[in-house]
């Protein structure tokens, strides 16, 4: 079998844990059957296959020490709804990892601003875990998280630990508050203006809906962060995941191969074109 064909062959993985995060978002821990583990970097994604139904690109939300991976998935379409119905113990198909990673090595030595919107926290989670595990390698670290409502907040326990970390500036905001919410209300872009980082030595990692990333990038640019220091993660219609089929093409980029993490200058103007 050619290397290209092999790259598209799903391996069997077992769902060993399943957690319901919100009414439509759940997290799996999956482990390879046999010795089929993978090496991956924060920001990359896998193609997850519900046998007989279809395949979807899912970012890698966590890498556990024993080779297990975490995937956080929102049930929004036919495939992801089928995945939502699978119980712990079920075997699924998985191939990957694919795509580019967050530039954590290049960011070392400077300040780091991590901005997540909604489910965009999932592709950033492993990066945050890695940064906090090597906290001394970075300057100031700001984690800014915005989501829809208090009921949509992901990884509640971990967020509390990040917020309590003495060397991390953590802020969370919701677009719509409900009774009992004592935190911030408003869009996540407004947190950028207040965050304590030095724009001239900052790397920004941004993930969320495209419109949120666009306005967040603009807020970061207004603060003085260099365009090339802003990295966003895009989600498109990945099918082959290896840059052959073109389903995920955005202008000159194949998001599965060139992305999903891309520096802002490579996207300049592309997110404002309705046809793309």
């Amino acid at each position, binding site marked *: 079998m050619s290397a290209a064909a092999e790259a598209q062959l799903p391996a069997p993985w077992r769902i060993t844990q399943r957690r319901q995060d919100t009414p439509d978002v759940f997290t799996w821990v999956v482990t390879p059957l046999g010795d089929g583990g993978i090496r991956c970097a924060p920001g990359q994604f896998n193609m997850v296959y519900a046998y007989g139904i279809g395949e979807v690109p899912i970012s890698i939300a966590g890498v556990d020490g024993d080779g297990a991976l975490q995937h956080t998935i929102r049930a929004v379409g036919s495939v992801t709804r089928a995945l939502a119905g699978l119980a712990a113990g079920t075997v699924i198909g998985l191939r990957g990892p694919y795509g580019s990673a967050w530039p954590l090595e290049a960011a070392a030595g400077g300040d780091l601003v991590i901005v997540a919107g909604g489910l965009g926290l999932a592709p950033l989670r492993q990066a945050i875990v890695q940064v906090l595990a090597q906290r001394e390698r970075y300057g100031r670290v700001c984690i800014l998280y915005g989501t829809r409502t208090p009921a949509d907040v992901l990884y509640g326990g971990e967020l509390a630990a990040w917020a309590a970390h003495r060397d991390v500036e953590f802020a969370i905001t919701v677009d719509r508050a409900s009774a009992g919410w004592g935190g911030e*209300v408003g869009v996540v*872009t407004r947190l950028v203006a207040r965050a304590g980082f030095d724009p001239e030595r900052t790397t920004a990692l941004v993930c969320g809906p495209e419109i949120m990333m666009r306005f967040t990038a603009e807020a970061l640019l207004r603060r003085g962060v260099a365009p090339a220091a802003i990295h966003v993660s895009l989600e498109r219609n990945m099918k082959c995941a290896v840059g052959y089929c073109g389903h995920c093409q955005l202008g000159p980029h194949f998001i599965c191969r060139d992305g999903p993490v891309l520096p802002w200058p490579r996207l300049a103007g592309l997110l404002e074109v309705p046809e793309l």
Partner: protein
Amino acid sequence: MTLRELVESQHFCRSLSPGQCDGLAASAQERHYAPGDYLLSQHAPADTFYLVLEGQVEVKLALPGQGIVTLETVGPDEAVGWSWFQPPYRCQFDARAVTAVHALAFDAERLRALMERDPVVGYAVLKTLVGTLSERVQSCRLQVLDVYAPPGGAP
């Protein structure tokens, strides 16, 4: 820091002369609020323009049958209230301290008079106010878009 220095350190004072900053400082005072205190109350006279120095303020609105809804929170270096600038000078929303708040409070009547008398001061304050309004409108648009709602057509 003295009141005069606090006023002078505000963004809109950067383009003003010392005399103009004195004029602004004469209409200002420092205020401290405990969590739960109201800075502004709906329908009350809008007689104060606040700049938050420390702490967090929530802007709230009572909805019949739904209780009181928090529309947004405002933090350091942000303005609270602009009803003082336009007749009938009545507050449209409540503004309540979430945490302990330290704010600069400008007397609206004196500030308006100063802005009328000295257009340079008026323009500087107005630029701050328009910047605040512009940011709030943009935030409001994004909130209305409900950008985190489940996307249609996803696999």
